[in-house]
């Protein structure tokens, strides 16, 4: 069970209250009409699956219902940091 800090509620809560919404920082192409099929397909379907540091989008579903980002180690499950939408992570893979 992860003990997750919600940056909006400003306290730790149980993992049960949260949902993971997948990889964070996926930018929608500014002009979808101009994308090739490959670019659009990669934007829609292709995700990282790293062993180690991963930036994820989470939502505090049973609490404040706000989204935030989390940097997590997929190997040790250690949560490196949480940060709000629009902020950049300070812990990044080398």
């Amino acid at each position, binding site marked *: 069970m992860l003990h997750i800090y919600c940056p909006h509620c400003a*306290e730790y*809560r149980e993992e049960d209250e949260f949902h993971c919404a997948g990889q964070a920082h996926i930018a929608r192409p500014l002009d979808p009409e101009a994308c090739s099929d490959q670019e659009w397909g990669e934007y829609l379907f292709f995700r990282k699956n790293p062993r180690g540091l991963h930036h994820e989008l989470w939502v505090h579903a049973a609490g*404040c219902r706000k989204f935030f980002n989390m940097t997590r180690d997929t190997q040790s499950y250690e949560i490196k940091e949480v940060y709000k939408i629009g902020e950049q992570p300070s812990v990044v893979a080398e």
Partner: protein
Amino acid sequence: MSDLNNMTAAESAATKAAVMNQVPGPEIEGQSPLHHADLASLAKQGPKTGGIHLREQKLLGHLTLRCNAENAEQLAAVERVLGVALPLQPLTSTENGNYSIRWMSPDEWLILVPGLETFDIETKFRDEMPGHYSLVNSSGGSTVLELSGENVVDLLKKATPVDLHSKSFPVGKVVSTLFAKSTATIRRTGEQRFELVIRRSFSDYLWLWLQDASLEFGLVVEA
């Protein structure tokens, strides 16, 4: 589309058209989500002593306000309408007599008012609030249960993962969290007193669940 932050008087008046009084009046009796449980009879016939006291605060007005916590004009308008400021710190609440405001998220608050005053307050908000905001009457979607008694913390511990120790859950704190496979917005109103805002559709489930969970402490229903 007009700019919602700079509306003309006519545009602003048009936004009030969608407001209607959902309560027909005091002469027509409403039915709370727990009407079928007949808590009033249980209060008369049931046990008078026990570790858990349960009371439904039925047919309150529930208003969901979404606005900008950094807009001083909107904050001032809320204070003019309710006589109390919005709680801006996460997980806090404020109250003024029968009005209480719960922090739900950084831009959302739940305002509880007496049922028959709901429409007045909603109308006042439409008159006072400037700029871009949303006020929705969600009274029909939820109900409030008040739990108190010497074993109330023991009971809640069975239902929710939140730490209920008075150091981390002081009087006045509000959390939205999981509650017995459903969800609830729990507010501590006293050392041994809590208010739960629960979903209408889960009210029967939670009523059955609370009866079962409080068997070992003894449940006293209050009207």
